[in-house]
């Protein structure tokens, strides 16, 4: 743990730009959060021509093309308006085949944001209490949750960046990905903490830092191997899976990488830092002899 400052710096290298993007551009939220409509359809048209036609009909918030499909994001449309729009498109470009139509009221979006925050806080609260209870010390719980926070920040930052440059939107699935990563991150952290606790019992003479170093060396191989198996699965899904889950899987990939790093190089150094501080302040200073 000699290099703990270096580890924190490395994390900051990703977190700070992420925070910058988040503050500057925010997240590009999908219709799940903002309300509105999304229509995905197949038609034989060029993007430019289609855009011209659509802009006359509805406010176009976004139009993307993938192969021969187009995804249109617009204001909240009713089924009838959606139908009318498709008739309009087909009168110009021929047959339109609707693949997906989603419309979400504005109140639902706010509700989703609220529920997401409550869900994350609740999960974090439960995990903090459980870890603190299992390790008989609140510092383990707090540091594990801080590592979780680290992973959330990285995921949010990356998606803010992707939103700016690749028009990737944050949707309800992203929320699911984030919650999964939170539990994965804690899962990984607990394995290292558990090793510290066990070595502490076996070798009571070792100092805390020595125990930590020992635990980290012993669990690093396992941590990497495990993450690799998950990354194999996710990579296969990302490269070969369907378009609808592509960014969901990508979020999980980022989270797995960050979660693996944070367990060893954030959660543990934080623990050491906490220990240093508490020693610093609990040592009696002036003893009268």
């Amino acid at each position, binding site marked *: 743990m000699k290099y703990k400052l270096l580890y924190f710096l490395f994390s900051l290298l990703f977190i700070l730009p992420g925070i910058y993007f988040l503050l500057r551009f925010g997240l590009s939220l999908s219709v799940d959060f903002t309300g509105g409509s999304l229509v*995905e359809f197949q038609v034989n048209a060029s993007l430019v021509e289609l855009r011209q036609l659509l802009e006359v009909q509805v406010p176009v918030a976004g139009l993307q093309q993938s192969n021969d499909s187009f995804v249109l994001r617009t204001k909240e449309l009713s*089924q*009838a308006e959606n*139908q009318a729009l498709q008739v309009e498109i087909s009168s110009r470009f021929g047959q339109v*085949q609707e*693949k*997906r*139509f*989603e*419309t*979400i*009221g504005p*109140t*639902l979006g706010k509700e*989703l944001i*609220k*529920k997401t925050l*409550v*869900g994350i806080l*609740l*999960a974090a609260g*439960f*995990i903090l209490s*459980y*870890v603190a209870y*299992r390790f008989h010390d609140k510092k383990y719980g707090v540091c594990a949750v801080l590592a979780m926070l680290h992973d959330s920040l990285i995921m949010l930052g990356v998606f803010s960046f992707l939103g700016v440059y690749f028009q990737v939107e944050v949707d309800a*699935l992203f*929320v*699911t990905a984030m*919650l*999964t990563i939170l*539990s*994965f991150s804690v*899962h*990984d952290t*607990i*394995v290292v903490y*558990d090793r510290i606790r*066990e070595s502490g019992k076996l070798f009571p003479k070792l100092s805390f830092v020595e125990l930590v170093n020992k635990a980290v060396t*012993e*669990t690093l*191989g*396992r941590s990497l191997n*495990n993450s690799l*198996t998950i990354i*194999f*699965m*996710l990579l*296969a*899904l990302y*490269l*070969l*899976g*369907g*378009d*609808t*889950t592509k960014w*969901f*899987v990508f979020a*999980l990939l980022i989270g797995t990488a960050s979660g693996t790093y944070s367990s060893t190089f954030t959660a543990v150094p934080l623990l050491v830092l906490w220990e240093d501080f508490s020693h610093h302040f609990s040592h009696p200073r002036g003893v009268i002899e």
Partner: protein
Amino acid sequence: MKKLWWRLWFILALTAVAIAVNLIPQYPLKTGLDLQGGTHLLLQADMGNIDPNDRTTALESVKQVITRRVDLYGVSEPMIQTSNFQDDYRLIVELSGVKDVSEAISLIGQTAQLDFREDLEATPGAETFRFLPTGLTGKDLKKATVTFSQGGNNTGQPEVSLEFTTEGAKKFGEITQRNVGRQLAIFLDNQPVTTPVVSEAILSGTAQISGNFTTKAATDLSIQLNAGALPVPIKIIEQKNISATLGSDSVRKSVIAGSIGLGLVALFMILLYGVNGFLADVALVIYGLITLAIYKLIPVTLTLPGIAGFILTIGMAVDSNILIFERLKEELRAGRPFSIALELAFGRAWDSIKDANVATIITSLVLINPLNFNFLNTSGLVRGFALTLLIGVIISLFTGIIVTRTLMRLFLVKKV
């Protein structure tokens, strides 16, 4: 040793049952709308004009009405749920495989119309009926309730009591006066719901419909009548149409991706841990078979994120084994004989495995929201994902530890 063989037989039997369940067509794998195509609607009921005490009843009536309408379209297994909390009364409607969505949707979105119709031309006992509107409608009906008859031969029989408004009582009185002995039909959305015979002129504004009702039949009738008595405008606040081709395409791709990922993981385990890795792979196959069987038995409605959840749990399932094998290597390095090292590795790894998995179980429970707390997520997609995660963690604890341990004790311990 004998106990171990029993355990092996138990595992084999369980696997055989799982394979059987997976092969029997009686247990189909239920797939969600995103996979088979269809329409998902979230309807908001406007309860502004309904007395707060009657709102739950009114929502139940709306549900009945929509179920009737959906049935007309012959939709296979429509899913219609009510969800109400605080001041929001909502209905979730999922229709799979509806071709002409627009028509179905405009029908669903209408407010229910109830009216009473008389059959003036027919003589009592005639075979054919021609019902004509009377001008008495759902607006004149205050409420319908299930009651039990008080006197006569039928004491204790369930009946449906109608309570009219002042205006309605007057109309109802006139209608019953001129229809004694004839049928007075009640129509909902232009479909007859019930056609009772008027026994006498009723001027009091309250009436009972009796017959050989079971309590359930009486309740159903009262709910349908209330749909007219408590008319609730409904509005679509969320709609998702997914075409069937998009769904089947996603399934095919995910299955291919999953198989390739699984193959890579299996190979990786063998390369890293040799024979041990191979046994872990066997446990992993058993894991896959049991999980699939459980999806079919519960049944879990599999959605796209659900498939992703399943694939993710495969990665997590091997984690228990990796923890144990890494531990085993250490114990062997410390110079312990294989049989002792094996037991130590399993014992010591268990602590971390337990704590780590409890954390995952906590998260999945928060996501599944089993108690339906309204401040938490109730989205079907998120829940589907979390449910597969929860099932995955629990089964992987069994296969990753009990199955692998039994296999290793049986086939590897003798070696040393």
